[in-house]
């Protein structure tokens, strides 16, 4: 529903034009109409004509310029002018197409693959190696990390009223959940990332486990990612704990400390049987034994039941999204849309993730504590715990609460954003890349779709998050874990995405939001209700009607304005009524008109 924010920040929000292009007048110089971000610098202005091979409008002649943040193109003759405004961080791959001797019109140029479901092709004149400059510059600035350059977030000079780095304070969040308490304590054992280099410094663990216990347990968990508390149910004290797989191996090793530790988690609220959700398909869990991993066996963990959630790994998800791109870009597959969609399995994966999270949330609601892990506990595990928390805790459904959720479950717990997204990295074929976070945001979108009044934030926030997941304009999603962020001083040297969002919070708010903190939201994980997120995945296609506001939202806002207008008029009327000249009966005139909720009657006529 919303366009690419195209990284222009608060200074330049485009409204009402096509998603892939904005129409602007040509009054100024050819490229003078783009407002650069503070800290953004022009690297090259290509004064020769370049042709943008727009898949929807055909070849468009125009000019291009590149800054250290973006690639900007503006068509010369199309009316209205077509512009492209692409943050370099979005670019995943730059290739030369055609050679000096290629024949055919527009066969010589550049082919750019973006991480946000589109490709861009530019054609240039063959004479004089015209593309060499532009290719070199693009290659260098789109992949700064591979060239020893800083990403734009470190060059940005943007200032915001609010400092988004203050949104998440781990202690505050624990306190909000009622921690520490007599069963759970806060430990600083990982203060120097000694216990686990991919975990945050502050952890919540069973009260009865000592720091020494934690160290022992960490030896038996992949990459030292021990089970720690993510969320606790206020009433029944059931907890969601997250961790990585146990290092059982082929020989089926056991570890008394780990077994005892899990039993402490179970005991904390008197749960009879601790449920361990292994996000993987059981086959994969078994196969992991060969590489030293595995799962919690029945005999070793007698007070626990193990459930496999059958969610596939990062490679499967990557291929799935790739297939999805094939059927939606540039053109939406027409003849067999539904079966093509099914063959990508994208929604099927979404369904598995959501239904896994439902099971976790359901167990917690029933008063049973759960432990969630996959292999390393930073991809599928993060998806499951954060979705379950979104279902269970209304706080995370607010604009700020959602930021906390992302900061906590994803960023601080070491989802490998740098590896999964490949910020500034030229190795487009890197096997570590995977759209796990995109998939999670898609799941959240599915939930907002099913519960349109339950979330304080709107679709625009989700699209903005995904745009800046790639853009490298903010430090929020940079690096793989907290220790790396500390080393690179992300908090002091870059701006947080939440600075941008919270400085203009109203544009990310859902007008239909009706707070209901205590209610557990169970989305329906049936293909009948899951939809392709058209306004994100197919937003570049002009045939998909892009509306700044949904008609429902628009109507609602109009009505709100109308209500305010009437209320004001009524107030004025009452003022004149109660003036001395008016009747002595004025006391009985509607004094409560300002509280219109009392007046709700049912609908008689369409308005």
């Amino acid at each position, binding site marked *: 529903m919303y366009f690419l924010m195209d990284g222009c920040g608060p200074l330049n929000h485009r409204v009402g034009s096509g998603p892939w292009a904005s129409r602007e007048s040509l009054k100024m110089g050819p490229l003078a109409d783009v407002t650069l971000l503070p800290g953004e610098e022009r690297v090259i202005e290509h004064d020769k004509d370049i042709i943008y091979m727009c898949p929807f409008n055909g070849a468009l002649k125009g000019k291009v310029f590149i800054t250290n943040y973006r690639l900007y193109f503006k068509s010369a003759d199309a009316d209205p002018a077509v512009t492209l405004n692409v943050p370099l961080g979005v670019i995943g791959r730059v290739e030369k197409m055609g050679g000096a001797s290629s024949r055919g019109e527009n066969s010589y140029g550049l082919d750019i693959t973006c991480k946000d479901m589109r490709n861009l092709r530019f054609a240039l004149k063959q004479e004089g190696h015209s593309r060499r400059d532009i290719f070199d510059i693009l290659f260098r600035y789109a992949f700064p990390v591979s060239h020893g350059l800083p990403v734009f977030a470190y060059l940005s000079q943007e200032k915001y009223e609010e400092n988004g780095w203050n949104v998440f304070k781990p202690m505050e969040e624990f306190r909000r959940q009622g921690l520490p308490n007599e069963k759970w304590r806060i430990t600083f054992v990982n203060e120097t990332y000694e216990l686990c280099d991919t975990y945050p410094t502050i952890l919540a663990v069973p009260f009865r486990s000592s720091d020494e216990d934690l160290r022992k347990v960490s030896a038996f968990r*992949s*990459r030292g990612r021990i089970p720690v508390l993510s969320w606790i149910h206020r009433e029944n004290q059931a907890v969601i704990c997250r961790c990585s797989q146990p*290092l059982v191996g082929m020989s089926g090793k056991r570890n008394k400390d780990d077994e005892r530790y899990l039993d402490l988690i179970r005991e904390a609220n008197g749960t009879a049987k601790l449920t361990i959700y292994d996000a993987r398909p059981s*086959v994969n869990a078994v196969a992991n034994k060969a*590489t030293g*991993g595995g799962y919690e066996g029945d005999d070793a963990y007698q007070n626990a039941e193990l459930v496999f959630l*059958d969610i*596939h*790994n990062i490679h499967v998800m990557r*291929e799935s999204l790739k297939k999805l791109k094939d059927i939606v870009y540039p053109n939406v597959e027409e003849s067999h*849309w539904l*079966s093509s969609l099914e063959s990508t399995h994208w929604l*099927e994966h979404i369904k598995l993730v959501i*239904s896994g999270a439902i*099971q976790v949330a359901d167990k917690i609601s029933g008063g049973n504590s759960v432990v969630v892990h996959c*292999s390393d506990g930073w*991809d599928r595990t993060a998806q499951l715990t954060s979705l379950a928390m979104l279902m269970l805790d209304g706080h995370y459904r607010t604009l700020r609460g959602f930021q906390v959720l992302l900061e906590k479950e994803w960023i601080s717990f070491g989802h490998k954003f740098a*590896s999964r997204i490949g910020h500034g990295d030229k190795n487009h074929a890197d096997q*570590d890349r995977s759209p796990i976070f995109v998939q999670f945001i898609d799941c959240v979108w599915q939930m907002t779709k*099913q*519960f*349109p*009044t339950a979330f304080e934030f709107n679709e625009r926030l989700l699209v903005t998050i995904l745009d800046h997941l790639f853009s490298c304009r903010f430090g929020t999603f940079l690096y793989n874990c907290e220790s790396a962020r500390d080393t690179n001083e992300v908090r002091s040297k870059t701006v947080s995405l939440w600075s941008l969002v919270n400085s203009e919070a109203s544009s990310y708010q859902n007008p*239909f939001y*009706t707070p*209901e903190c205590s209610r557990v*939201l*169970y989305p*329906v*994980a*049936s*293909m*009948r*209700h899951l939809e*392709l997120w058209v306004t994100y995945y197919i937003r570049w296609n002009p*045939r*998909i*009607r892009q509306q700044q506001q949904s*008609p429902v939202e628009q*109507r609602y806002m109009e*009505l709100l304005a109308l*209500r305010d207008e009437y*209320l004001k*008029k*009524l107030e004025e*009327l009452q003022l004149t*009524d109660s003036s001395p000249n008016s*009747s002595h*009966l004025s006391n*009985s*005139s*509607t004094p409560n008109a300002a509280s*219109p909720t*009392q007046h*709700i*009657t*049912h*609908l*008689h006529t*369409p308005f």
Partner: protein
Amino acid sequence: MLSSLGSGGGKTAKPSFVSYVTPEEIKSEKEPYKKENQPDLLPGEVVFCSACPVLKYSQDDMSQRGVFGTLLCTNFRVSFVSDEVQVEETCKLFKNKLYGENDIPLACVDNIYGGYEDKKKLITGGLLKNKYPSKIIVHCKDLRVFQFSLTYSKEEDAKKLCFTGVLDHNNVVMKTYLRSSSIDNNAVCFVEMQRKERTMLFDCLEDWTQDMKRTKGNCRLVTENSSFELSQKLPQFFIVPLNVTDEDLVKFQGNGLPMWCWSHHSGCALFKTASLPLMLTAVAHNHLYSVKTEDLSDTLPTIQDIQLSYNKFKQFFLIDNTTEFWMSDMKWFSSLENCGWLDMIRQCLLKAVEVVECLEKENTNVLIMEESGSDLCCVISSLVQLMLDPHYRTLLGFQSLVQKEWVAGGHAFLDRSNQLHLKEKVESQSPVFLLFLECVWQLHQQHGPAFQFSETYLTVLSDSVHVPVFATFLFNNDSHRANVLRAESPSSQRGPLNCPSVWDWSVQFDCRAQDLFTNPLYAQKTKQDRSQRKSHRPKHQRQLSLPSSAFKTPTKKGFFKDEADSLKKILGVKRISRWMLSPSSDFPPMSSIKEFYETWQAKPLDYHGMLLPCLDGPSIRVWMQRYLRWIHDVQILGGGPVAVLSKVSELLAEVQELRSELDRHARTVTSNHRGAIRTRAKTAPENLARSSVRLSSSFPFVTSRNWSFKPAIPTSMLQSLMMSEVAGDLASREDDGSEPETVV
């Protein structure tokens, strides 16, 4: 009697109504000893048989739990009356007055299956003779599924129920509607009551005149068929091109007569015709524009195709048990595609857009035709009007449209729905009207604010087709209707038999329930809007180009012989479908439509102007409310579109209240402040029971009794993924290619 209805308006049948007890008698007979285990019978409704105790399985889960009660079969419905005291549901706002949640009008019964141990068999007469099932499963046309266990009741009763009642229901329906229809003599006065703002029924001259005037059409209104002198197939009144002569009318008897549907403001018009376009030239001459003809059978599915496809489609929603449901969930998208239903919807919408393009962009007359002239012609012509004329997007306008194109237009409702379950009519059975409603729903969900009526309205309308009391849906055409009603009216005491129209919604729902028929998003055109548009709109081209007398000259008599083909050439008649089908021809087919759509889409959306549907794959959807409402596992508690819509409704009500208060203020400023006091008292207490968060996505059809519930957890999901190619070597790989970690 039976044959008279079934045969689509043949000879007048012998009056048979007198042979039954009159409703009054029944009433007096029943009231004194009204048993508890009986539903509230309608006047004229008679219980044929019953079985007790019968266990009705609860739909919610697959446990063998249920409620005991009595299963009855009347001449109107199959009804289950629970032994348990019904807790009066306060939030049962959306109650149908004719039948309750445990009632199935006989015409609404789709299929009955017998449950034999683990097998499920379609019950036909032969099967029952040997063995009666321990369980019967009833699939309804409104997609409800009932499961009753007969093991506890007397075999005799159960057998009787199966034989006489449920199985022979075709025999029974007939009698019912005639009777129950007579109940509503007093309810029918709505037509009189709302003379000004009413649904035009197109059963009288004025309605046709008015509609032609409204669209500024210039055609000939034919009154010669008011007693079906010309043809039994033609409506009582209809409109043809000006130069159709009396002789032509007699000669063609409805076959090939171009019937006027609607006039575009440019002066060109849409016509439809049955059979061959013998009168083509008449249309062509009519306005001096060229005519494009479109044989719908060239490109659109046949009625048999439609029936077949829908039969497959509906199976996805007739859920006997949850395991099956979740199994089918895995292949949902491809099954959906394979049944072809969505594609038929798309094809119809596409065809309508093509016609719209001709009218709007090229300003040519369009003549659509098919053999019957009353199936796909109705679908396309009404869709075209819905897209082009905002009047038909109002509630009354829409009802008028259905009356004009479908009821007066002679759509064979009785044969198409085969309410009588007649074997010989099985072939003509086809949900053509439903297909139309599906198309309307697509437009509705894409352009909500353009419609005054709600999604719920469309769903209820689709259900009402299977409630056999409405004159609207009981007949095949005007003459059929007239014949049957006249025949059944006992000349004596009660005057003509009066079947209510479906548009008299008070027969089914009370006012509060009817409020849900209006769309809170609908933005009525403001007056300012209207005047602006008027000034923008170009003058009628017809008025500009020619004095009206110029083309009134009647064509020569006998002009329409067999020369139609050569005339086509002379007049440059083009066939839309031809250039739609051959992409290599001069007129690029799909690209033209695409361009037309894109040009329209590029402009700011005017909900009171032309509306076009987006036909891309993701845009054509399943009508969730209609198809998923009874399936417990997919109900979104506290969510779904209704959560938002009800908020809009609440706010709308608030705004309206404020405005009326303002108005009162304005009125009472001079005359004391009494008005304000009255306001207080008048403020309605009830709040529509809509408090949004408590509703489920199945609102208003299912009210969720139990707020605490277990979430539906999909079962058997992995298989499909594992079996598919996805699970190749990728699936077995490590996420991060991690080296084994060794533990000391």
